[in-house]
C-alpha cells in the first residue's frame, strides 16, 4: 500500500523528500511537509482509534487542533514516549513511530466493541457515576479495566532524556494566530515600531491561506504570506514563533505559549537543544486572530470513519495533496461548505452529491456546482451513514425548512466519504480564560469573545469575519487600535485585493433530524472523544439537568483532551432545544487553560534534578562533603546532619559526637542561622517592642536570648541578639525563620513605627559561623588567638572582637549545648580557612564535627527549645515555662503581650512544655506521639498533648523527651501514657525538661 490517496502534484509537501514512519507496527511512507494525519490518510488508513465509551472505530475528522479522534502515542524508545498527540498537529519526520492510544488489544479488533454494538443501553450518560461509583470500593477495579480498554495513552517508565525550557518575554503586541488577520495585525504593529510576538500553532505561518486557492492582489495567497513573513522576520523587534500554541491567557495580559522546538525533527531533541519551550509573555496588548473551527453536523452514525468536516477535506487536498477517499457526499448548511466538493472534483475524484439543507439555495456556489455537473440535492440532509470501519453509503432525506423533521422518503447513495459543514465557530477559548463570558451572535450563528478588562482585541475569523479581505482589514484595525493606545503612530498597511463572492444566507442547523426520534435513531455523535450523543444530551435534560455546566459534567461533553472543540456548540444547541430555550439563554461553558495539552516537561522547564530547588551552601560546605557528612535539608540549606565514620550506624555516630562534645570539644557549622544587623538610635527601643523581654539595659559587649511572638502571643521565633554598639545590634534567628523575621521587622517598621530611626540589614550570608563547644573549647580557641579568653575577661554571654587563626572575628560566648562555647564569626570568605585551622589545632582535643542531629540532642539534654519543633504557633512563652523571658514591666506593649493575656491564654489546663522521662530508660518515645492520662480510658481517649522532641542521650544513658502536656507544669512527677499504633503503651514521668546541669555550671565558665 503506497500512498494510494496521494495526488501526483499540488500541495505544500515535498515529494522529493520521502519519510518513513511506523503506525501501529506498520511501516509507511509520507513526505516532508506532511502531518502524521495527512500521511495516514495518504496511505488509506481509515481507523485511527476506538471511541472511549462504545469502542467504535474512529477516523480522522479534522485537520487541526480540533481533531477529536486521531490521538496518538508517539515515541520510538521507552524513554521518549509521549501520549495524546493529535496526529493533525504532529509533523511527520523520518523515523516517527506512532500508535493509536484508543483501542485494546488493537484498533481493528476490539474486545470492548460489543459494548458499542449493544449500545447506549449499557452505557447511558452518567454511566460512570451510576454504575462504577457504587459500590465505591470497586471503582479501582473498574477503573483499571476501563482505562486499559479505552486507552488514554501512557507516559514513559524511564526518565525523559530531553531538555525543556522556559523563557520570559515582553512585547507591545502579542498576535495569536498567523492567518490573514494575524499576519496583517503583526505587520501593522511591526511597521509602527512596536515590539511584536507572532505565534501560531502550525509549522508554517499563513493559517487558512495555506490551503486556500484564493488570490491576493492577483497572486496566489501564499505569495502575500511569504512576503509578509519575510518582512516581519527582518525586524529585530519581532519574535516569530511557529509551532507555538498560545495555551493560556492569564490576568493582566500574561499569556503562556507552548513552543514545540524539535518535535518535528525527531522524537529526541538534538544534543543541547530544548525539545519544547514555554514562553511566559507579558503583552501590553493582545490581538486574538485565532481563526474559527468548522462545525460538523450531527447526524446518524456520523462517526463512521470517512465522516469529516468539510474544510478538512479541502485542507488535505490543497495543502497536503491527499484526497481522503474516492466518492464524496457533502452536506452543508452554507455556501462555504461547497469548496470541499469543488476541491474534490478538481482533484479528479467523484462528488456523488452536494446535499444542501437549505430549501432553495441560489448564488454563485450553487451555480458553479451545477456547471461542474455535480448533483446538488437541496432541502435535504444526510440522516444516516452506512458502514462500520469506513463509510459505504448515506441515507438522504428531505427535511423541513426549520430543520426539525424529515419530510419525505429516504434515498440511499453509495459513498466512502461524508463531509459536513454546519458553519463556523470562532476560536475564542483564550478570550474566556480570564473569566469573560462569550456572547452569542445571531448573524454568524456563533459565540464571539465577550467584554473584558484586559487589553485584548480580536480580528478575522475569531471575530466572525470569514472573508480574507475582511480578516486582513480587521487585523490592521486591531493593530492600529493597540498602537494608538500605546501612544505610537500607526503606519498604514494596504489590504490586498481579493475576489469577493456573494454568499447566500446560511441555515441554522446543528442537529439533523432522523425519521425516528432521537432516542431511537442511530447514534448521532456530538462529542466524539467522549462518545456524547444527541440522545444522551436530551436524556440528561429529561433527567433534570438544566444548566449547561451540569449537562457538561453529566454527559462528559467537552471533557476530552480536545475539550470539545468540534462538539461544544452543537451540544449547547441541542441542550437549548431540549430545554426549549435559545442558545444565548442556555449559555456556554467556561473555557480554561490550557487550549491544547501541554507536556509536563514544558511546565517543569529547567527546574528539575539539582535545579529543582536551590541548594544553599555555607562557606564550609566543601569541607563537609569531603568529610563524609550526611546532609539534612533545613529550608533550602544543606546542613550537615551527622558525620558518620566508617562502619558506624547513625546512632553510633550521634553517640560519639555527643560524648566527644561533652567530654572534650565539638564543632558545629552554625552559619545558616539568620543574622540581621540592626542600627539606629531607636534600635534598642525596636528590640523591646518585638522581643518579649527587656533590652534597655543590655550593655555593649553583651548578648541576650529573646523570644518573638506574634500579636496573638504565640512564640514564632527565638534567638540571641548581641549589643555591638549603643545603637548597633546583631540579631540571630532560626535558620528557617530568617527571611520571615526580616520581613516581619520591616513590616512593623514601615507600616507601624516609621518614626523609629532604625535600619535592618540581613547579613546571614556574610558571616561564617562556627561554634566550638565543650570543656576544651577555651583551650582550643586560646591556641588560635592572642586575645585573653579567660572567664574573667570573656565571660558567659559576652562577645568580643579578636583575631582567630589570623582572621578578624567576632566571638560570642553563647551556648546552645549547655557546654562552654565560643561562637566564632568571620567574614565568610575566610570561613573555611578558620574552620581548617581549628581542626589543625583541635586534633589533640579530638575536635569532633557534629551536625544538626547532635545539636538537637545536646540542646534537648538542656531543655532548650527549638522554635517550630517544640512550638507550633499555639504555645506562648508561659506555656513553655519561659515566663522568665517575658518582661511585663516594659512601658511599650510589646508584640504578643496583649495576645498572651487573652482569656484562653491564661486559663488553667493549657498544654505546657515539660520533660518526659520514660519508665523504661531504654525506650525512646516517638516524636508526635499523643499522650493520655488514662491508658484504659474508652476510645476515643482524651488526648493531652504530644511529644515534641525525643532522643537517646548517650551522655545520660537514657532516653530524653520533651512534650506538651495539659497542665503539665503543675503535674511534675505524674505519669503520662503514650499508646502507639503498634499496640504498645509507653509510660513516662513528667519532669523538668532540663535533664543535665540545671545550674548551668558547664556553660557559665
Amino acid at each position, binding site marked *: 500500500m503506497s500512498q494510494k490517496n496521494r495526488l501526483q502534484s499540488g500541495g505544500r509537501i515535498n515529494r522529493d523528500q520521502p519519510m518513513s514512519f511506523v503506525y501501529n507496527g506498520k511501516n509507511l511512507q509520507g513526505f516532508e511537509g506532511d502531518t502524521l494525519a495527512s500521511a495516514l490518510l495518504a496511505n488509506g488508513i481509515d481507523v485511527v482509534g476506538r471511541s472511549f465509551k462504545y469502542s467504535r472505530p474512529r477516523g480522522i475528522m479534522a485537520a487541526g487542533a480540533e481533531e477529536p479522534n486521531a490521538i496518538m502515542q508517539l515515541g520510538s524508545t521507552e524513554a521518549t514516549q509521549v501520549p495524546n498527540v493529535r496526529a493533525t498537529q504532529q509533523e511527520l519526520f523520518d523515523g516517527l513511530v506512532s500508535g493509536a492510544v484508543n483501542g485494546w488489544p488493537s484498533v481493528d479488533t476490539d474486545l470492548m466493541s460489543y459494548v458499542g454494538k449493544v449500545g447506549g443501553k449499557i452505557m447511558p450518560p452518567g454511566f460512570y457515576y451510576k454504575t462504577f461509583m457504587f459500590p465505591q470500593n470497586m471503582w479501582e477495579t473498574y477503573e483499571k479495566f476501563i482505562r486499559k480498554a479505552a486507552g488514554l495513552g501512557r507516559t514513559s517508565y524511564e526518565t525523559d532524556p530531553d531538555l525543556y525550557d522556559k523563557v520570559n518575554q515582553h512585547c507591545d503586541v502579542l498576535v495569536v494566530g498567523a492567518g490573514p488577520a494575524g499576519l496583517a495585525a503583526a505587520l501593522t504593529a511591526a511597521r509602527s515600531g512596536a515590539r511584536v510576538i507572532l505565534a501560531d500553532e502550525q509549522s508554517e505561518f499563513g493559517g487558512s491561506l495555506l490551503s486556500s486557492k484564493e488570490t491576493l492582489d492577483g497572486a496566489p495567497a501564499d505569495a502575500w504570506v511569504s512576503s509578509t513573513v519575510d518582512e516581519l522576520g527582518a525586524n529585530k523587534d519581532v519574535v516569530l514563533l511557529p509551532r507555538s500554541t498560545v495555551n493560556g491567557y492569564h490576568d493582566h495580559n500574561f499569556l503562556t505559549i507552548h513552543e514545540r522546538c524539535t518535535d518535528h525533527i525527531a522524537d529526541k531533541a538534538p544534543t543541547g537543544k530544548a525539545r519544547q519551550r514555554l514562553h511566559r509573555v507579558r503583552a501590553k496588548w493582545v490581538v486574538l486572530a485565532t481563526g474559527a473551527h468548522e462545525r460538523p453536523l450531527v447526524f446518524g452514525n456520523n462517526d463512521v470513519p470517512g465522516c469529516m468536516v468539510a474544510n478538512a477535506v479541502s485542507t488535505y487536498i490543497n495543502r497536503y495533496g491527499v484526497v481522503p477517499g474516492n466518492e464524496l457526499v457533502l452536506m452543508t448548511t452554507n455556501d462555504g461548505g461547497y469548496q470541499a466538493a469543488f476541491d474534490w472534483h478538481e482533484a479528479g475524484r467523484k462528488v456523488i452529491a452536494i446535499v444542501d439543507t437549505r430549501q432553495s439555495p441560489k448564488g454563485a456556489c450553487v451555480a458553479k456546482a451545477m456547471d461542474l455537473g455535480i448533483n446538488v440535492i437541496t432541502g435535504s440532509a444526510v440522516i444516516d451513514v452506512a458502514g462500520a470501519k469506513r463509510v459505504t453509503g448515506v441515507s438522504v432525506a428531505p427535511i423541513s425548512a426549520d430543520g426539525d423533521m424529515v419530510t419525505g422518503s429516504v434515498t440511499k447513495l453509495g459513498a466512502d466519504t461524508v463531509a459536513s459543514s454546519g458553519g463556523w465557530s470562532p476560536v475564542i477559548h483564550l478570550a474566556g480564560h480570564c473569566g469573560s463570558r462569550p456572547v452569542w451572535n445571531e448573524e454568524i450563528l456563533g459565540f464571539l469573545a465577550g467584554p473584558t478588562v484586559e487589553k485584548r482585541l480580536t480580528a478575522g475569523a475569531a471575530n466572525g469575519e470569514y472573508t480574507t479581505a475582511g480578516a486582513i482589514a480587521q487585523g490592521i484595525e486591531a493593530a492600529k487600535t493597540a498602537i494608538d493606545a500605546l501612544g505610537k503612530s500607526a503606519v498604514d498597511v494596504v489590504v490586498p485585493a481579493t475576489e469577493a463572492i456573494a454568499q447566500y444566507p446560511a441555515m441554522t442547523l446543528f442537529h439533523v433530524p432522523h425519521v425516528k426520534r432521537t432516542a431511537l435513531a442511530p447514534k448521532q455523535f456530538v462529542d466524539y472523544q467522549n462518545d456524547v450523543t444527541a440522545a444522551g444530551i436530551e436524556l440528561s435534560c429529561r433527567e433534570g439537568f438544566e444548566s449547561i455546566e451540569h449537562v457538561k459534567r453529566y454527559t462528559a461533553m467537552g471533557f476530552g483532551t480536545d475539550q470539545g472543540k468540534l462538539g461544544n456548540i452543537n451540544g449547547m444547541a441541542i441542550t437549548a432545544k431540549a430545554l426549549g430555550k435559545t442558545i444565548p439563554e442556555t449559555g456556554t461553558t467556561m473555557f480554561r487553560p490550557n487550549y491544547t495539552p501541554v507536556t509536563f516537561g514544558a511546565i517543569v522547564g529547567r527546574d528539575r534534578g539539582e535545579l529543582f530547588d536551590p541548594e544553599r551552601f555555607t562557606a564550609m560546605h566543601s569541607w563537609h562533603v569531603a568529610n563524609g557528612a550526611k546532609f539534612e535539608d533545613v529550608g533550602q540549606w544543606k546542613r550537615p546532619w551527622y558525620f558518620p565514620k566508617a562502619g558506624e550506624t547513625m546512632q553510633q555516630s550521634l553517640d560519639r559526637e555527643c560524648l566527644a562534645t561533652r567530654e572534650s570539644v565539638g564543632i558545629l557549622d552554625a552559619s545558616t542561622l539568620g543574622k540581621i544587623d540592626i542600627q539606629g538610635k531607636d534600635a534598642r527601643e525596636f528590640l523591646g517592642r518585638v522581643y518579649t523581654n527587656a533590652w534597655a539595659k543590655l550593655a555593649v559587649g553583651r548578648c541576650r536570648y529573646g523570644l518573638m511572638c506574634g500579636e496573638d502571643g504565640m512564640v514564632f521565633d527565638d534567638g540571641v541578639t548581641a549589643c555591638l554598639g549603643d545603637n548597633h545590634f546583631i540579631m540571630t534567628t532560626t535558620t528557617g525563620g530568617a527571611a520571615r523575621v526580616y520581613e516581619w521587622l520591616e513590616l512593623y517598621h514601615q507600616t507601624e513605627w516609621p518614626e523609629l530611626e532604625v535600619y535592618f540589614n540581613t547579613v546571614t550570608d556574610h558571616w561564617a559561623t562556627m561554634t566550638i563547644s565543650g570543656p576544651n573549647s577555651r583551650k582550643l580557641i586560646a591556641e588560635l588567638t592572642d586575645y585573653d579568653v579567660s572567664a574573667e575577661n570573656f565571660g558567659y554571654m559576652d562577645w568580643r572582637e579578636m583575631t582567630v587563626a589570623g582572621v578578624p572575628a567576632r566571638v560570642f560566648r553563647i551556648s546552645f549545648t549547655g557546654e562552654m562555647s565560643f561562637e566564632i564569626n*568571620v567574614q565568610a570568605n575566610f570561613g573555611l580557612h578558620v574552620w581548617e585551622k581549628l581542626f589543625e589545632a583541635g586534633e589533640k582535643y579530638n575536635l569532633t564535627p557534629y551536625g544538626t542531629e547532635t545539636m538537637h540532642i545536646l540542646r534537648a539534654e538542656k531543655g532548650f527549645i527549638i522554635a517550630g519543633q517544640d512550638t507550633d504557633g499555639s504555645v506562648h512563652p508561659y506555656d513553655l515555662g519561659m515566663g522568665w523571658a517575658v518582661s511585663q514591666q516594659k512601658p511599650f506593649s510589646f508584640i504578643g503581650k496583649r495576645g498572651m493575656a487573652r482569656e484562653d491564654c491564661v486559663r488553667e489546663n493549657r498544654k505546657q512544655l515539660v520533660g518526659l522521662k520514660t519508665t523504661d530508660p531504654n525506650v525512646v518515645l516517638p516524636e508526635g506521639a499523643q499522650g493520655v492520662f488514662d491508658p484504659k480510658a474508652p476510645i476515643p481517649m482524651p488526648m493531652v498533648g504530644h511529644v515534641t522532641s525525643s532522643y537517646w542521650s548517650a551522655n545520660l544513658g537514657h532516653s530524653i523527651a520533651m512534650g506538651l502536656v495539659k497542665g503539665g507544669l503543675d503535674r511534675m512527677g505524674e505519669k503520662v501514657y503514650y499508646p502507639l499504633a503498634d499496640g504498645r503503651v509507653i509510660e513516662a514521668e513528667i519532669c523538668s525538661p532540663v535533664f543535665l546541669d540545671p545550674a548551668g555550671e558547664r556553660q557559665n565558665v
Partner: protein
Amino acid sequence: MSETNSAVAIMNQVPGSDADVRGESPLHHVGLADITDQSNGDAGVVFSEAGLLGHLTLRCEPSSPLIAVAQTILGIALPLTPLTSVEQGDLVVRWIAPDEWLISLPNDQVFDLETRFRAEMNGHHSLVNGSGGMTVYKLRGRHVVDMLKKSTPVDLHDSEFPVGKVVSTVFAKSGAVIRRTGESEFELVVRRSFADYIWLWIQDASQEYGLAVAS
C-alpha cells in the same frame, strides 16, 4: 574592644597580608581557574566570577543632608533615580531602594570607607559590610540576553533596560541584583549561599548557546 565603644561597631574584617590567609569566594569549590577557556570564541555566553570584592549596603533617607556627605566621601553622586547606578574606577554604587544603595569596591578599601562614614556621617544612616555574603558574576556574549530571559522575569530589551540600569529581582528560583554594564554585558550580584545554584543554572541555561569561563 576599642572599636565597639561608640554607637556603631565596625571592624576591619580582612586579614592582614602577613597572616597568610587565603580568601575563598563562594564559587571556590568549582575551581573556575581550571575550566577557564579563553579560546572558546564561539561561546554565546561568557562567564566570570568577580569574587572577594567589598560590598557595603548604605541606608539613608534620600532627603537627608547626609546624602551630600556620603557623596563627598564616595567621590561620586549617589544614584537617586530608581533603578540606576554609577560607576567610577573600582567603585560601583547601585540603587536598591529609595533609601538603600549597594556599594562595591575592593575588599581592602572597605574598612577605610566604614571608618570615614562613621567619622563624618552624623545622623541616621547605616553602612553594613556584606562582603562575605555576596559575589559578582559577570556575563557577556551575544546570547547573554537570551540566557537571562530564561532566568528572570524582568524585561531586558534595550529600550527598557539600558546600560547602567540595575534591578533587584527574581533569578531562577533565587534572586539577584542585575546590572547592565554594556550592550551585551551584565553583572549579577548574588548571595553567597545561592552562588552554586545560580552557577549551575547559568551553565544549564547557556547550554544551547555555548558557555565559556573567562578569568
